[in-house]
């Protein structure tokens, strides 16, 4: 989104290096991510796009041997700084995973969990509202409104993934990270999620990792191409797909490798 013609930058990554033990997985990544836009990260398997995504909400902390260097500024605040509180960070940066991973609890509990632990609702009524709006935004409300107290694991794959999206947006994050959210879904469910992503970008900044170049072309405004741990090229999706600067990007887009 542009304000007075100027791009608003939400996330600014500067010289990010990631190491798994002694092996370097990301080299010197610098990338700006625009606010209220969908940014797609594409590239062949093992190129580091998921690793980069997980840097943005510090999910790499969970992996003992993983270390991240460099600056990642979100709202001009360096999240790799010692003073950054991961709990607060992850409240602002939601995440949706490759495989739908609802909690083995009821639909209601799945969505209300985030607001509960962050103390976002004062009353049961407020919580009901949060759950309802989140499910509505995730385009799931109509399908599940009569069975909110049934287990979330009983839904179909596509519904589960939308439930996970509802769970992620329930805490009103500024950014939503999506790690191949459609790779376990059929084409119809995929289409629903893509439609949803388009809707969500009005309120959230979205970064999506995808294997499918068609998907990247459909949903994103900006695209970054990763290869062997390096960010080869990034820019507007139009440009990357139609007129890439780099030969490797060209080759990947046209299906010559990957």
């Amino acid at each position, binding site marked *: 989104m542009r304000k007075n013609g100027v791009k608003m930058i939400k996330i600014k990554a500067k010289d990010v290096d990631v190491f798994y033990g002694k092996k370097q997985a990301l080299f010197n990544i610098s990338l700006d991510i625009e606010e209220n836009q969908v940014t797609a990260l594409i590239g062949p398997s093992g190129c580091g796009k998921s690793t980069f995504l997980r840097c943005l*909400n510090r999910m790499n902390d969970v992996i*003992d041997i993983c270390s991240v260097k460099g600056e990642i500024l979100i709202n001009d605040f360096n999240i790799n700084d010692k003073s950054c509180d991961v709990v607060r*960070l992850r409240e602002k940066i939601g995440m949706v*995973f490759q495989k739908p*991973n609802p909690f083995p609890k009821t639909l209601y509990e799945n969505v209300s969990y985030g607001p509960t632990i962050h103390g976002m609702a004062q009353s049961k009524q407020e919580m009901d509202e949060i759950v309802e709006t989140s499910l509505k935004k995730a385009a799931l409300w109509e399908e599940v409104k009569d069975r909110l107290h049934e287990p979330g694991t009983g839904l179909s794959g596509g519904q589960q993934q939308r439930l996970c999206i509802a769970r992620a947006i329930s805490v009103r994050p500024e950014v939503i990270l999506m790690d191949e959210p459609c790779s376990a879904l059929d084409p119809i469910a995929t289409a629903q999620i893509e439609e949803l992503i388009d809707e969500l970008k009005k309120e959230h900044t979205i970064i999506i990792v995808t294997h499918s170049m068609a998907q990247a072309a459909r949903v994103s405004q900006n695209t970054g191409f990763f290869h062997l741990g390096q960010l080869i090229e990034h820019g507007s999706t139009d440009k990357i797909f139609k007129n890439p600067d780099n030969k490797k990007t060209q080759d990947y887009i046209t299906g010559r490798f990957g």
Partner: protein
Amino acid sequence: MNKNKEQLLNKRYKAEQRFRLYGLSAIFMALLFLTIFIFKIFSTGYSAFQKTWLIVPVTFDAELMMLDQNPSKEDLQDADYYDIALKSMADLDPNANEDQENELKRMVSYFFEKEIKNELLNDPNLIGKTKEVYLTASDDLDQVFKGNYPRDLPEEQRRVSDYQLKIFDQLVANSKVESKFNISFFTNADSREAELAGIASSFMGSIFSILVCLMIAFPVAVLAAIYLEEFAPKNRFTDFIEVNINNLAAVPSIVFGLLGLGVLLAIFQLPRSTPLVGGITLSLMTLPTIIIAARASLKAVPPSIREAALAIGASRMQTTMHHTVPLSMPGTLSGTIIGLAQALGETAPLILIGMVAFVNTIPGSPMDPAASLPVQIYIWAESAERGFVEKVSACIMVLLGFLIIMNLFAQIIRHKFEKKWS
């Protein structure tokens, strides 16, 4: 070429058939042993649940009991019942000489005086009247009635004399011998007399020990498992701890008994022979079992659930307490019950800390001396009296029942509460 291939295929099918056969025969063998074992125990033990009573007419002669007219309750308590008890037994054979009277007395348990007293206390109006009273038969006659006694042995090799047998047979012929359900086996504590010995003391001892063991081992083990699995950094030190926990699980139980003896009794001066010390000793033994079970079930919680919770901003502690631990609980609990069942069947460490002592009172708390079921089996198996043979098997049946119930409970918890991952 083609023929070769067919041969090869046939060979493969044959190999599979053979393998199935081996597996089936292994299962058959296991079942066979189990059946033999259970059959043996039941066939020896079932008779212990029956008890033989002699029905003897007793005359409550006030004079013999040294009672005044209109005696009070206290008088009845303090009265002398020995003479009327002796007399009623002697009256079974009016022609008995003094030796024979003695033998008649030994046909019932030494408890007979109390049984007669209880009869009168229940109904004070019996004074001066005659009533047929049920008296516990001696353990040898009990065995005679159950058909477990070798009557054809020469008299000098038997504890039951020909005279006693003669009188007993007369009583049987007059239907003055009855067999009833053996309540005292469950309500009495241990006794030197087989006909009076029961499992109440050891049963309560086992329950108290298990409770103490549970209360110590469960929280410690679960906390240790959670810390090791969810919070501890993975380094050499935690590897070392893990190896040692696994080693601890393999330590022979008697070593824990020595530890209990050397530390709990010698240094801390805790009361010996008590379920408290027994339970603490058993908890040391159960600890590694529960830790290993709890860690395994924590590991079985898919990492995606942890990631989901972390990604929405739950702290590590919240992720663990709200998601991982509840999801791992069914596995942890069934592991705990299996560990407790193991502890329940443990004998050696309890013998070392003195729970093998002869206890003829029923413990009211973990601080009272008690035996435990497996130790009771050991004590009775060592006793020479024929009456204890069936008691050993009966006690094993009770212990097995206890264990089966616990294992069943573990299975139910596992199946009912375990979440299915989609």
